[in-house]
Structure formats: C-alpha cells, structure tokens
C-alpha cells in the first residue's frame, strides 16, 4: 500500500476529498434537458386529454341524473314514529264515496300513534270510561260528598 508513512489526518482528508469526487457520465446536462423537453412537448397533449376526460365524466353524470328513474324512498325503520299520510276526502256520490288512501296505507298497516296506544291502555283498564266516550253521552257529574270527619279520642296507655 502506498503512502503508509503519511500522517493519519492527512490520509483521512485526502480520502474524504476523493470520496465525493465521483463524476457523472458525459452529457448528463444534455440528457436532463432532453428529458425535460420531451416532457414539455407531452404536457399540452396530456392537459388536453385530461380536459376531455373530465368533460366526458361530467356529461355522463348529468345524463344519468336527468334520465335515471327516481329511486323509491326506503321504508322507515319499525321503531320510528309513523308518518302521517294525509287522507283526502273526495266529493263523490254517496255510494262511491270512500276515503282515498295512499298505496302504502292500503298494503301496510301503520303502527299505532301515541294517542291510539294511550286509548288502548285506557280501554283495557277502565272499559266504562271507554264506553262513555264511545256512546257520546254526556257523563253526569255528581256532586262530591265528603262525610263529616270524626276523630276518636286515643285510648289511654296501660302501664305494666
């Protein structure tokens, strides 16, 4: 090995300066510029293609939005409050008179409302009240009588 008598510090410095002395192959600058120019030529074409692609996607989306059949609304969950569907009274001859209900009402029973549930509970516990309500008879209001209050004296306690 050459230079083995050189001081260590100088050896290290020389090695370090050689360490980064790598050279690229000839014409690196030209290769870089060629690649950049090729890219620059491609860029407008690529931009044009992107524009066309975006426009095509927009047109397709618009077409679908305008022409596609309307999607039916999904059924509400079972525990949701029932939707009050308006019942439309149509003036018709008596025999033909009927309540017009929507298609969904005809085919699917709607869950009871809070008021209907309350009425059901009332009917189970006190049918008299329900009868009174259903007969449409006025309920006679009786005067409230309170009997006289009598307090008995306390019995004297017996001592043992």
């Amino acid at each position, binding site marked *: *090995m050459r230079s083995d008598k050189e001081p260590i510090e100088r050896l290290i410095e020389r*090695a370090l300066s050689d360490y980064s002395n790598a050279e*690229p*192959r000839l014409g690196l600058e030209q*290769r870089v510029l060629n690649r950049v120019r090729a890219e620059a030529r491609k860029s407008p074409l690529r931009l044009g293609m992107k524009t066309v692609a975006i426009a095509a996607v927009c047109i397709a989306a618009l077409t679908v939005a305008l022409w596609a059949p309307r999607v039916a609304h999904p059924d509400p969950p079972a525990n949701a409050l029932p939707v009050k569907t308006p019942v439309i009274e149509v003036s018709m001859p008596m025999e033909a008179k009927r309540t017009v209900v929507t298609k969904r009402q005809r085919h699917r029973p709607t869950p009871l409302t809070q008021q209907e549930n309350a009425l059901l509970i009332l009917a189970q516990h006190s049918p008299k009240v329900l009868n009174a309500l259903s007969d449409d008879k006025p309920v006679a209001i009786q005067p409230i009588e309170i009997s006289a209050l009598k307090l008995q004296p306390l019995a004297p306690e017996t001592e043992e």
Partner: protein
Amino acid sequence: MRQDEVAERDARFSALVERHSRFVFRIAYALLRNTHDSEDAVQEMFLKLYRSGDWNRIEDEKSFLARAAWRVALTRLRKRVPQEPGLDLPSAALNPEDLAIAADWSEAIQRLIDCLPEDLRRPLALSTVEELSSREIARVMGLAEGTVRTRLMRARQLLREKVISLKVMYEKR
C-alpha cells in the same frame, strides 16, 4: 404564453441545469453511492422542478437544489432498500484482505467511510461535496446544526480509530 417567452424560459432553465447538474449529482451520489442511480436522481429532480415551475422563484439556488436532490435521492434509497433501523448502507466488504489489496490508503479509507453508520456517514459525505458548511448540511438533511456538528465530529473520530487499527494491522503484516 408567447413563443419568445417560452424560448427565454427554456434558456434560463437550461442555464440552471448547466450550472448545477454536477453539484446535484454529487449530492445524490453522497447518499446513493452509485453513478447510475445518482444520474437518474438528477434527471428526476430537474424534471420535477420544471413541472412545478418553482425554479423561477428560487433565491438560493444551491441550497434549494441540494435539498431537492437529497429528498429525491432519499426516496430512491428507500425504494431500493427496505427500511430497517440500524441498517448500514452500503455494506461494502470490510475484511482485512480487501482493505490490504486496496490500491492505496485513500481507497481503503473510503471503504471504511462506506461502513460507518448511516447517520454519521451521510453528513460526513455531504461535508465533502463542494465543502458544504454544517449549516448547509443541516438544511439539506433537515436536522439541527448542532446535531450535524456532533455527528461530523463522531464520524471523524470513529474513522480515525478505524484508520489507526488498519495501520496497526498493516504494519504487523
């Protein structure tokens, strides 16, 4: 954009490439230690720079390009080698026979540098590229200047110890 404006812009970019491509190559080479990979990194970096248009607004060209080249080279290195903590790159042969048959001390010491831990080798390698200062190295690597100084000191210390061991080994032969 008008034709003459495009031509003028291209001329300015060409001048930038002419001025700094060698410097950028050396920054990439400090990390990658491979001529082909470093050249690819140079091309990739300039191409990204051209596309972004940032090169029109650079204040400190050298510092900016050094950082950009370092990032591109680092990405390439990560793709090339699976990231494992404590993995030293490159794993040049470090056996006494190889070192003994090295053409001279400089070559032997370069192999020793290659075998330093990466966190020490990288700042040391950058310090040899056109004599970048600790501050510039810190900017390139995204580290604190103090960290870079400490690492440079440790790298040189470790290298000195290895060279002494090598010299002792060589003298015994």
